[in-house]
């Protein structure tokens, strides 16, 4: 055996090129080093009495990375050192990305819990003056569920069927055109979707007609492209083998789609639909325009009168500006997050029910 290229022997590495052994840092080295750097940096900062969490985290991260990479380069060689560098960077980015999420949850929990109780969840603002220490968000929860539910009922059939058409039937110019317009729809600002429905409602029912259905349709306009895109990806994941297996049994195409393709991708479709719901459930602007922002009483009827929803409730409470209003807004924000989490949990359950079982 002849080696045409021999890597330059690094420090700490055996001089013979054929020796496969390398030095390695002890298994617990990174964790211990991280703890040590954190402690030292904290000590130094305290000594200069300029301790701050951001500065501390930043300096610890930089110091740890520099030390671990240098140590690894000396003991383990270049490839391992690069591995350690990238590992540190990836973990750093992960923490950076988690920071806003944790911060948002923490703030909402901290501020929202003050007023988040069964009473808040079970009464509306009917007959409650904005500054009174009473009232709740029940009417907004009802509105959010009704409007989002109807938007889902409208957009899921349209979206999934569009995706089926794109994946199973469409070809050439028609396919490109539809995909282009779906992309354009994805880019519509939500307020434009709201204005579109306002204009439509003025034409159909005259000026001043606001109701839940208008809000649902404006949300559906926003939801359809998201559903199409995610469903399309999921349907493409279904192996062509399965379609061919079905055709080879003499099964017509439409039955192959309804009985084989859709069930196989059901779990993915559910997840995609949930993401689309999460995308629109927090929409505020189109709902202010279409479903109104001054409803205070419980209204289950999508076709009659204004309808409050959680995001609009938050918005209008913040606009009022009193201490009690801020508390209501935070509690409503907490409610909205919990509703979304509950929906995701349900979707996971449903997805697991449909998912292909291995054994």
């Amino acid at each position, binding site marked *: 055996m002849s080696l045409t290229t021999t890597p330059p022997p690094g420090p700490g590495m055996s001089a013979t090129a054929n020796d496969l052994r390398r030095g390695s840092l002890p298994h617990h080295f990174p964790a211990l080093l991280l703890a040590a750097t954190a402690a030292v940096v904290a000590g130094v900062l305290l000594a200069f009495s300029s301790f701050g969490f951001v500065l501390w985290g930043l300096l610890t991260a930089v110091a740890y990375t520099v030390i671990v990479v240098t140590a690894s380069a000396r003991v383990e060689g270049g490839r391992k050192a690069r591995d350690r560098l990238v590992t540190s960077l990836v973990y750093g980015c992960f923490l950076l990305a988690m920071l806003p999420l944790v911060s948002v949850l923490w703030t909402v929990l901290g501020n929202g819990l003050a007023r988040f109780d069964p009473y808040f969840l079970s009464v509306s603002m009917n007959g409650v003056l904005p500054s009174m220490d009473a009232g709740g968000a029940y009417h907004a929860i009802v509105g959010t569920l009704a409007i989002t539910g109807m938007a889902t009922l409208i957009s899921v059939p349209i979206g999934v069927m569009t995706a089926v058409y794109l994946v199973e039937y469409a070809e050439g110019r028609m396919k490109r055109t539809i995909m282009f317009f779906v992309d354009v729809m994805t880019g519509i600002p939500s307020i434009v979707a709201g204005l579109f429905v306002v204009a439509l409602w003025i034409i159909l029912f005259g000026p001043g007609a606001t109701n839940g259905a208008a809000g649902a349709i404006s949300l559906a306009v926003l939801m359809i492209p998201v559903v199409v895109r995610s469903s399309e990806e999921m349907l493409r994941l279904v192996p062509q083998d399965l379609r*061919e297996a079905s055709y080879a049994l*003499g099964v017509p195409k439409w039955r192959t789609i309804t009985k*084989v393709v859709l069930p196989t991708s059901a779990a993915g479709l559910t997840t995609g639909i949930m993401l689309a719901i999460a995308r629109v459930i927090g929409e505020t602007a189109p709902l202010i325009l279409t479903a109104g922002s001054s409803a205070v009483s419980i209204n289950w009827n999508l076709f009659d009168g204004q309808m409050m929803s959680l995001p609009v409730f938050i918005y209008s409470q913040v606009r009022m500006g009193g201490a009690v209003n801020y508390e209501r807004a935070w509690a409503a924000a907490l409610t909205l997050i919990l509703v979304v989490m509950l929906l995701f949990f349900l979707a996971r359950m449903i997805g697991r029910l449909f998912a292909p*079982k291995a054994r």
Partner: protein
Amino acid sequence: MAKRIDVSGLNVYYGDFKAVEDVSMTIEPRSVTAFIGSSGCGKSTFLRTLNRMHEVTPGARAEGKVLLDDLDVYGPDVDPVMVRSEVGMVFQKANPFPTMSIYDNVIAGARLNNRRMSRSEADELVERSLRGANLWEEVKDRLNKPGSGLSGGQQQRLCIARATAVKPSVLLMDEPCSALDPISTLAIEDLIHQLKEDYTIVIVTHNMQQAARVSDRTAFFNLSAPGKPGRLVEMGETNQMFTRPEKKETENYITGRFG
């Protein structure tokens, strides 16, 4: 029941590219016919034209005549869906439906076609098909478990059971053993021997020993030159093909002196 296939002057195209040129052959009922030849010589493509499966691939079309007994498969009023329920197919990669149990996989052909069946009829069909595929003893206690939990060889036999459950007259097999170990391959080959009592079987294989073991007649396909369409070089009794082929080209391929 088993039917004869008569192919005459068949050309297959993918868009503008001619993949198979001017194939004519007769496939006898109740026998096994093997297609051999190097990769990309069009034998799988040709196989798929026998039940119009090639039409699933965008841009693929075939010209010529394929007679199933007396019926022209490419006749103007022939529904490809009906052709496929008459000419079943088993694929290279076992592909049981992942959302269905073993039981449901076997009766998938009937269920997906919305044929009404009583519970006892369905049970009987499942047992008969699985017994026919030599799989019944291995799975009879777990019929409600997913088909994807079986081993590769069992999955392939499940696919054969699924294909025979719709009672076709012809069974096309596209390299059914290429992903299986020798024991599973033997099981499938034994099965092919039994199945030829009732079906016309066409099998594509890269394994010449397999062709010699299972088939009654063998057809050798080859490209005339790289980039040219594949064609049928020679077809005859398997014994004769492997001992005294008529063409030099066939002999070179069979003896491994291929270039």
